[in-house]
């Protein structure tokens, strides 16, 4: 009697184990329609489209420095923003160094436009030197760091660039 019940338990366990493996496979196979769709469906790595454009910009003088007003458009598929931005600008051929920082964080939903205000204050040299150099399309260095917001994520971003004013206009975004 004991041996009979033991054999029954063993058999039941084997049947339940087989059912636990076969049932999900059968259900998923039936719902996918074909063997190819079950084994190798057409899947794509869904990388969000990250893209923004500079719509317009305006530079004005304020409190001994500059205020750069950038109008941005998020042309990508995920929310984009800048939570923090700070750095330094210096001229390659003249003595001028300035510090820039973001006035307030900006987050743009997909398809949305908004303004970004960056304040530049001179640390070394005067603004006239900087203005003249820019008007002559002279090279300047920009270094800084930012915290970029993309979707639900935040990315610490550092950058160093040697640019010309004419190149800034040409870039217009990533």
């Amino acid at each position, binding site marked *: 009697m004991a041996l009979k019940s033991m054999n029954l338990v063993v058999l039941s366990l084997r049947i339940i184990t087989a059912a*636990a493996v076969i*049932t999900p496979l059968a259900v998923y196979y039936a719902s996918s329609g074909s063997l190819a769709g079950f084994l190798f469906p057409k899947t794509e790595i*869904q990388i969000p489209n990250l893209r923004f454009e500079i719509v317009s910009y305006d530079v004005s003088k304020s409190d001994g420095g500059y205020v750069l007003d950038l109008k941005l458009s998020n042309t990508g598929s995920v929310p984009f923003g800048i939570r923090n931005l700070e750095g330094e600008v210096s001229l390659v051929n003249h003595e001028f160094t300035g510090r820039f920082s973001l006035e307030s964080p900006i987050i743009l939903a997909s398809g949305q436009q908004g303004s970004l205000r960056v304040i530049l204050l001179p640390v070394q040299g005067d603004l006239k030197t900087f203005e003249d150099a820019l008007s002559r399309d002279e090279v300047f260095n920009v270094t800084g760091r930012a915290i970029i917001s993309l979707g639900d*994520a935040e990315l*610490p971003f550092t950058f160093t*660039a040697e640019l010309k004013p004419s190149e800034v206009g040409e870039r217009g975004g990533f």
Partner: protein
Amino acid sequence: MEAFRVVYLVSGLLFLAVALLGGAWWELVLGEPAKPVLYVGLSPFGIESKLFGSQAIETPPVLNALLLAFRALAILGASTIVIGAMLEGRPWSKKLLNLRPLTMSIGFAILVAATTMLLPRFLSTAIPQLAQLTPNLNEAFAPYSSGRLRINLYPLTRVNSSLDLAFKSQLTLNFWIASLSGALCLAGWVLTKKRARETLGEAKPVTEEQPPITS
């Protein structure tokens, strides 16, 4: 209750909790933990990958079916351990005790080690630019590591710019609970064998003495 049954009971309950609650056994977090850029969570019961907070890869049906089957087997294995440990008087109760928590934990650890070892090599071969973009990618894909991943954006932007992201890869609490369950299971199995040997040892002298009595 016999000692081995108590050990098996605790093991079964722990593994049942892990199998029912779900959650990753190994995870890789790239970026700030609260708002990660990339999150990859693996367990024998599920795969989760999020890029910028959205699901990045859809798992194929065959893999979903296998993961569901693993979950069903884990719940079944843990349930039978609990029932087997509790039904002391039944002669077939020992047949319900199994080592599934141990085999699943060890199997998962081997799989993670192999994946984290092979994936960077595969990615470097498939996308040769990756070595230029992320020179220390191998460090991030280790079973247990933390540090900072530098992504060089110059090849993409032509401006000397980089992303400096914190990364952390680790075996989670779920894995360690499953491993503890596996270790207890092994201890229960050892105790069962030891007890069986002792019973056999006690029984042998009696059977040797029996022939003279019966004859």
